[in-house]
């Protein structure tokens, strides 16, 4: 590069200090450190300058910045979350709150639309007139609305530009603009006396057509509702504007409407509307419904709890009643048990008594039987000594008294043993005397004794009296003595 020293010298002679500066500059560019330092000193200003010039920096940087950010986020999301946290939190809260408010508002609107008397009237009107509910609702809440704007070429009556608002049905605007012009001419021809008078307002029910005349173009607007005064002024301004901007084109108009397409925004500005200011009310209906739901829920919970409490109460009562019944039953059982015990005791007592009775009666029986035997022996051993050939009986005789007493005892004892005694009295005589007499004597003696015994109180049915010779008598009773013998029989 340096060449030969001569050439170098020549260069110095030719360029002098400039050459050194050039070399220094070259060194600066070649050395990346110095170059970047020099660029760094101006890069911010350079970016600013370029951005102000044509905004090219943003579009160039955007992809790089996007890539850098996505890279950084995927590397360390938490850091970004931390950075964004103070911004995102309130934003999310605000957004949620807004969404809730909107939902409530919409809900209320829906309720109003479906519940309020007014909405039903509108629905009826819609049904009656065959229009949609939305149209009716719009018309009823409207103060005024500019529905259509026609820009009409004044000479030909041809439509230059036409705009109309949403929800408006626009029929063939070219024909309308022609007819408007024709009517204009018709009215002017028919009624106007001075040359410059123009038809500027048409009215049909709620519709008003305002016509603003310029020298080359006519602006006609269709307004529904009450036309405000300022609208007329606005139309005049618009017409003036149009004439200023498009004077040449309007004059040279030969049917090509595309020239006036750029007028659309200007005409669209005329499509203004004003709705009845609905006073901002709290959404009462929504609140009411929510309150009703909450109330119903509360009532239901209350009822449920009451029912539950009643159920528990009933159960408790039932349990109580069961306990009482159980107790009563227990008591009854105890009573019955005690009664049973008592009964058993009394039965035992009775049994004991019976045993005792049996024992006693057995004892009695034994005693009675023994007494009976004794008494029988005593009676059968008794003897009454008769005098010779006599049959008289002395009732006071101790032997007789004793006999009577024995017989009475025998009778009592035999009765206790459920037996009936019979005492056979057999009269005897000794063998002195003749037989006939003896026989009679023996009989007499027995009879007398029987009578004496009966007199002393012995029942007659117990005693039977026989003479010793009576046939069939046991022989041991037939004695050859002056006596009576006794034989006791028990039946």
């Amino acid at each position, binding site marked *: 590069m340096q060449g030969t020293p001569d050439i170098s010298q020549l260069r110095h002679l030719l360029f002098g200090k400039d050459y050194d500066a050039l070399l220094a500059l070259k060194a600066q560019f070649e050395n990346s450190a110095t170059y970047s330092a020099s660029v760094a000193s101006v890069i911010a200003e350079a970016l600013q300058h370029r951005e102000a010039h044509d905004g090219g920096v943003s579009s160039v940087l955007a992809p790089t910045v996007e890539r850098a950010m996505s890279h950084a986020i995927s590397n360390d999301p938490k850091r970004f979350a931390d950075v964004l946290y103070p911004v995102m939190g309130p934003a999310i809260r605000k957004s949620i709150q807004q969404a809730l408010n909107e939902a409530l508002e919409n809900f209320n609107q829906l309720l109003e639309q479906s519940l309020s008397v007014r909405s039903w009237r509108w629905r009826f009107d819609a049904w009656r007139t065959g229009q949609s509910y939305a149209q009716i609702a719009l018309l009823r809440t409207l103060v005024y609305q500019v529905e259509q704007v026609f820009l009409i070429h004044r000479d*030909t009556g041809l439509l230059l530009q036409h705009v109309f608002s949403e929800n408006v049905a626009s029929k063939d605007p070219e024909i309308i603009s*022609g007819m408007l012009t024709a009517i204009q*001419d018709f009215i002017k021809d028919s009624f106007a006396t001075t040359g410059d008078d123009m038809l500027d307002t048409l009215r049909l029910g709620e519709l008003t057509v305002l016509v603003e005349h310029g020298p080359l173009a006519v602006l006609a607007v269709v307004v529904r509702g009450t036309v405000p005064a300022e609208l007329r002024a606005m139309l005049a301004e618009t017409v003036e504007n149009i004439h200023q901007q498009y004077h040449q084109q309007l004059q040279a108009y030969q049917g090509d409407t595309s020239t006036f397409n750029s007028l659309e925004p200007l005409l669209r500005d005329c499509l203004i509307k004003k709705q009845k200011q609905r006073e901002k009310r709290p959404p009462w209906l929504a609140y009411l419904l929510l309150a009703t739901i909450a109330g119903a829920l509360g009532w239901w919970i209350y009822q449920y709890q009451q029912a539950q409490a009643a159920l528990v109460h009933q159960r408790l009562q039932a349990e109580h009643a069961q306990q009482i019944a159980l107790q009563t039953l227990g008591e009854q059982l105890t009573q019955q048990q005690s009664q049973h015990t008592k009964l058993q005791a009394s039965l035992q007592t009775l049994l004991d008594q019976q045993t005792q009775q049996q024992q006693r009666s057995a004892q009695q029986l034994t005693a009675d039987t023994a007494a009976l035997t004794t008494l029988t022996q005593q009676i059968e051993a008794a003897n009454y000594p008769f005098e010779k050939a006599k049959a008289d009986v002395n009732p006071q005789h101790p032997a007789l008294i004793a006999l009577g007493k024995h017989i009475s005892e025998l009778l009592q004892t035999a009765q206790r043993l459920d037996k009936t005694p019979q005492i056979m009295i057999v009269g005897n005589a000794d063998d002195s005397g003749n037989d006939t007499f003896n026989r009679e004597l023996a009989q007499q003696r027995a009879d007398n004794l029987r009578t004496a015994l009966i007199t002393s109180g012995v029942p007659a049915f117990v005693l039977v009296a026989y003479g010793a010779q009576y046939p069939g008598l046991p022989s041991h009773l037939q004695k050859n003595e002056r006596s009576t013998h006794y034989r006791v029989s028990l039946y």
Partner: protein
Amino acid sequence: MIQQKICLLGSFSVGKTSLIRRYVDSLFTEKYLTTVGVKIDKKQLEFNGKTHSLMIWDIAGEDDFTSIRTAYLRGMSGYIIVIDPTRPHSYETALSIHEMVKTTVGELPAVFSLNKADLKPTWQLETPQHQHLQQMGHPIVETSAKQNIGVETMFLKLVEKLGGQHG
């Protein structure tokens, strides 16, 4: 798109409204509507690769007692004069209308229509009258709204002349 205003002129009951109805809606009505003022219809058609939107002004017929409102003629690009050859008087009216238009609006493309071609045997148009019409240098089209004869041609002839004018 080129928008143009054309007018249909002629005596009473020569069939202007019927011709327009036939052209615009392709629907003929036997009921003759006496047009009192003006009625406007629209027809779009292609000519030489351009879309033409014709605003057709059906202007009430002229007779001895009423005259055409000249205000309606303002701004028109061309016109059609309809003649009912079964009534010779309509021919004279046509000529006077033609003169009137020339004086009030100026020389414009025009087409003459000899309507009621379905009743051609009863036409009373004399040969000299026919020749006179032809000498005026405007296209002459025989039309019948009832039988849909020449209606399209009539409008096309006019558009042709308009196109030539705007060339």
